[in-house]
């Protein structure tokens, strides 16, 4: 009987289902319940009303999204050329370059952020917004480079030759063929960078010495410092962020289809 149970591969899925239920679905349900109840466990939308009434909270939210957008943009501007040079065959050192880009990722990002703080101290640079942006770009740049590098690398050389053959010079080929074909990679990169930056709190705490509060920190404080009384409010904030991130991944789903289509 037991053997039969193991032999049927369909049964192998159950442990994972259990894990998912306990660690993903259950917490999500709990967040939902907390967000829509008060401390007495009665249904309310007061938590959300509270958020929208507090201009400070809304401003933090907008500020966080803005910082995330700026970080993402900087990562595109820095990451695209890096990925492009790595993917071009004329540079015969993509392995070395990939290695150098991946190397910082071997170290925990908290340690790297602490090191960044020390770096700023060493050069007597002020910690604050600039340091925050620097730190976030530094941490998340590889997540932008890789997806772009991947799509660029998969572009068939004959497409570039076809473009040249039809009269396009290098620049026209880049704009009309390479860029459109690498967009799926850029979209993936955007999601990979935007998602973690919009919800980060550790980097901002370390690099601004708690001077700047991001939305992630707000949530963290609701649970950490406020004690049990703030949990419902924190859950509501989490839900709002979840929706924002959810929206960006819908944006991503379309692109994944694009990538599949090209493959």
């Amino acid at each position, binding site marked *: 009987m037991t053997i039969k149970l193991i032999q049927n591969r369909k049964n192998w899925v159950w442990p994972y289902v259990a894990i998912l239920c306990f660690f993903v679905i259950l917490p999500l349900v709990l967040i939902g319940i907390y967000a829509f109840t008060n401390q007495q466990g009665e249904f309310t939308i007061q938590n959300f009303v509270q958020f929208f009434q507090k201009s400070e909270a809304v401003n933090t939210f907008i500020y966080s999204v803005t910082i995330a957008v700026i970080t993402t943009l900087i990562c595109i501007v820095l990451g695209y050329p890096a990925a492009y040079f790595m993917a071009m065959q004329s540079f015969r050192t993509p392995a070395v370059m990939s290695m150098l880009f991946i190397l910082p990722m071997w170290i925990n990002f908290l340690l790297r952020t602490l090191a960044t703080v020390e770096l700023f101290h060493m050069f007597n640079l002020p910690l604050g917004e600039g340091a925050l942006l620097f730190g976030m770009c530094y941490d998340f740049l590889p997540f932008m480079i890789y997806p772009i590098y991947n799509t660029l690398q998969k572009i068939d050389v004959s*497409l570039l030759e*076809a*473009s040249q053959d*039809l009269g396009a010079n290098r620049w026209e080929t880049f704009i009309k063929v390479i860029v459109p074909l690498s967009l799926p990679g850029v979209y993936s990169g955007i999601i990979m960078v935007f998602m973690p930056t919009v919800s980060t709190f550790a980097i901002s705490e370390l690099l601004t010495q708690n001077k700047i509060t991001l939305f992630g920190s707000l949530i963290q404080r609701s649970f950490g410092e406020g004690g049990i009384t703030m949990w419902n409010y924190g859950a509501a904030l989490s839900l709002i962020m979840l929706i924002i991130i959810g929206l960006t991944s819908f944006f991503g789903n379309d692109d994944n289809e694009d990538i599949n289509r090209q493959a």
Partner: protein
Amino acid sequence: MKSEYIIEVNHVSKQFEDGKFALDDVSLQVRKGEFVTILGPSGCGKTTLLRCIAGFQVATSGDILLNGEDVTEMPPNERPVNTVFQKYALFPHLNVYENVAFGLKLKKIEPHEIEKRVKKALKMVSMSDYEYRDVDSLSGGQQQRVAIARAIINEPEVLLLDEPLSALDRKMRSDMQLELREMHDKLGITFIYVTHDQEEALTLSDRIVVMREGKIQQVGAPTDIYNEPQNCFVADFIGESNIFDATMVKDKLVHFCDHDFECVDKGFGEDTEVDVVVRPEDWYITEVGNRDEKEGPWQLFGEIKTCIFKGVHYHMTLLTDDGYELEVQDYHAFEPGTRVALLVKPEDIQVMKKSRLCNTFRGKMAEDNQVEFLDELWDVNERTADRFAVGEEVDIEVDFNHINLQDDEEDGTLSGEVYFILYKGDHYHLQVRTDDGDDIYVDTNDIWDKGDRVGIKIAPSWIRLYKVEG
């Protein structure tokens, strides 16, 4: 000054980074409006030649003229040529219409003019209803049509086609061949077409350029290439053939398969060694039965070994009484075991000059009765060695049939790989390429496969040495 030719390739060589020559002193002239096919096995350099004309590769030496203008180093986007790529290379992010319009949009042509021309080009390739389709949703044949439309819409002076039909199935391929030929006649554009398919080349071309190992073997009209191949490689590559070692006894008389045949060739000299080709369909065949064999005009006699039905004809192999194996095609089937007589008309015997009569090398005398050539030391007879001083340069000759191939490459003085095999009726003529890239030609009765690793041995007595002339 306008040149008589639209394309002139003058002594073009292309050497890759690893030192190998993809093109070795290739010269070719193409007239305006011609349909020229570059034909050869894979790795013969045909695609490299096309890419040099398109501009994707730059020749190491030599030059390429387009309309009399030197374009050897001109980038592809400035050349008045367009290419149809082997795997179509359609832009996946654009639909059919946008793909076809790509070249015109770059030239900043008026949108309504573009629309008119795209519609015309798509009509030309029978793809009118597919304008707004995604290119990935098209079949291979449809993609190929779009690729052709995308190239011809720019009205190039020369259209380059790189094995454009190789990915299509047989039926589709023959349909597209006819359409391409029609398109060529209608457009009046010069076509340069690369293929490894000899049938395709024979069907389509005004002229065929046969290439091998970076060199042009023969240039000529399809009938010339088929009926009068200039060497064994061309004869073997194009169509099926019986190739024999032969001796030109005198003008219009050639001896092979132990028989004297009348032929139409002359000017080879007397008692000259030559190669002879007879196409399988050029043999006349009849059953001998109880007749007196010496009666009538029949030249060879033998027994049918195999008989295979090929659709229109039967393909038979037979063994002559003197031990030569022949390929014969006829509309009638002759069962294995049947005794038959054969006849070939003088004009159906193609006599070819031999490119070499024996292996020749240049080397140097070493000590202890040894001679050094192909970077190895070889033993020679003492009597032979005594005629030369140590260190003296010598010419070395070894007959094809005195080279000994060993299964185990360790057993040879030199090791190499069987590179090309030609069956000559009663033996195989092999080209063995050594690891250093030198060629040794071997006649053998043993059966080897292309790519076999072999050890090469030569008995001392079969190495002939000569003083270097001049």
